[in-house]
């Protein structure tokens, strides 16, 4: 990521590491990417273009969330933000378990409860 290094004057309490504040460029890039990643799935849904549109929606949503985190929340690889990254990693894992797990279990449940498959299985 190429970030223009505009050092912010009068940055107060956290200026001790010579930390660089966010820049106009970052916000404009993030904003433009977010608009594009909103427009793509919207256009596909409105225009009924592709058949695998759900996948496109999911990919664009995930990409846009990353754009927001990087360009708006300014999460980076600095030592200062180490624990922020740890907390985020934990949440990503938990959200994966909660969302993925729920869908997986309920899909199997619905599948097995279909009228056609309601028969005794022979367990070997």
């Amino acid at each position: 990521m190429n970030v223009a290094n505009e050092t912010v004057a009068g940055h107060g309490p956290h200026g001790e590491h010579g930390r660089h504040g966010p820049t106009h460029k970052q916000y404009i890039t993030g904003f433009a990417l977010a608009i594009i990643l909103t427009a793509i799935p919207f256009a596909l849904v409105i225009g009924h273009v592709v058949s695998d549109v759900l996948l496109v929606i999911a990919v664009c949503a995930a990409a846009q969330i990353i754009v927001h985190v990087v360009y708006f929340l300014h999460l980076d690889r600095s030592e200062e933000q180490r624990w922020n990254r740890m907390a985020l990693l934990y949440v990503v894992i938990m959200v994966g378990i909660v969302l993925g797990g729920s869908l997986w279990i309920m899909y199997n449940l619905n599948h097995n409860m279909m009228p056609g498959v309601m028969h005794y299985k022979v367990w070997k």
Partner: protein
Amino acid sequence: MSKGSMVMQDGSLALKPGYADHAADALRDLHQTGDAVFVDVEPHHEPASLIQLGFWIYLMSDCLLFSGLFATYAVLHGHTAGGPTPSQLFDLPYTLTETMFLLFSSFTCGLATLAMNADKKNATLGWLAVTFVLGLGFVIMEVHEFVGMVAIGATAGRSAFLSCFFTLVGTHGLHVTCGLIFMAVMMAAVAKKGLTATNRARLNCMMLFWHFLDIIWVGVFSLVYLSGVVH
């Protein structure tokens, strides 16, 4: 004299227990001003980065709250109980307008951050006001959508899908409303006291919160509205 320190009879500065962290600050001020009597040692000034980390942890736990609501919606969105379906209820261009309100407000919130970092008080207040108006526009549009749905009988009690819909989208709307209150309070604080260290730390938290709400909305827009119309 301050809470944390006292001047002894011989003129030396003594610290009460528990204020050792602030001794260095007090001594630095003493060196600069040569006058210890007016040094105010506050006992609870955390570094701004620590405040932000604490707020970040809150945001992450809020994420977990939303993950539960998202999972519930994902599981039950098809259970319409013979009532209105997502594709019958949702008006995508209307929701896209809502999305744009929130996205623009996130951008202007970023401009407010830049103005704050450049020590421009009036510009900060101006961009915060723009952000507030855009956020308010989003909330008004959402309330209007809800009212329209209730008017045609699509209430939260109609089906499992609608219960989940109102809980998920309503919780997000409530967060945005809280964010607006937070923003109004911070605008008043900045207008009154200026961009002090305390106000900066709080504004940073508020701005994190606002960007975070936009991230949640990306999930709502994709999972609820876009996917709902595809089905």
